[in-house]
């Protein structure tokens, strides 16, 4: 797969950065001329993944969040969200609908929505070291990139 363009951002896990993160990714993928629905889906994915870092990876501290986006041939977009926080003990459990360790302020639907809005979702985690979420979305090809 040929990489056409990429970007990388790092920011602290302040909740005010959720909006910044999804807006930055929406801006970056605008070069693919996505539909409004596609932009909405991508913003949702970024918001879910970044919120997971803020709520679960760094529950009692502010830590680093790394966000990488790559654009490949045929309008394939890969979004990687990485943290260096607590890690997930049981990934299968975390991905179950309605499961949350975040109390009643969280719905437990984050991973369900991420699975529904992506073509592929991979989660790698090491307790005590951090978590990497990799999401791939294929956008419609309305225009061809030069």
């Amino acid at each position, binding site marked *: 797969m040929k990489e056409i363009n990429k970007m990388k951002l790092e920011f602290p896990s302040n909740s005010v950065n959720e909006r910044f993160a*999804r807006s930055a990714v929406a801006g970056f993928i605008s070069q693919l001329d996505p539909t409004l629905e596609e932009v909405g889906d991508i913003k949702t994915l970024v918001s879910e993944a970044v*919120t997971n870092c803020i709520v679960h990876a760094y529950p009692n501290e502010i830590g680093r969040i790394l966000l990488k986006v790559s654009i490949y041939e045929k309008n394939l977009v890969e979004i990687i969200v990485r943290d260096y926080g607590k890690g997930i003990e049981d990934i299968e459990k975390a991905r179950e609908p309605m499961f949350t360790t975040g109390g009643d302020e969280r719905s437990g639907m984050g991973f369900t929505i991420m699975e529904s809005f992506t073509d592929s979702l991979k989660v790698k985690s090491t307790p005590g070291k951090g978590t990497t979420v990799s999401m791939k979305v294929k956008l419609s090809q309305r225009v061809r990139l030069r």
Partner: protein
Amino acid sequence: MKAVFTYDNNRLTIALSGELDHHGARDIMDKIMNKIDDTLPRDCHIDMGKVSFMDSSGIAIVLKAYKKVNAIGGRLWVENVQKQPMHVFDAAGIDRIIGISATV
């Protein structure tokens, strides 16, 4: 994220506006719960006409409000939902529990 409340004749309307994410939800979750406690409405509408973005944090708010209203024997529904928030509700299957209608 803003919440404007109107109460009249046992009916509480909660009009939300802005972007409903985890950051925004933290601001309004308590206000919504307190308002339901204060008014004990028979009908509770959540008007999402001005919510331009929502993630799963919005689902948590709607579910929590629904449980509270349900516990006092009231009814709750969500209306005027724009496309992006509706896609999130649909992916979570929330319409099986709570009445949700799209913006017209």
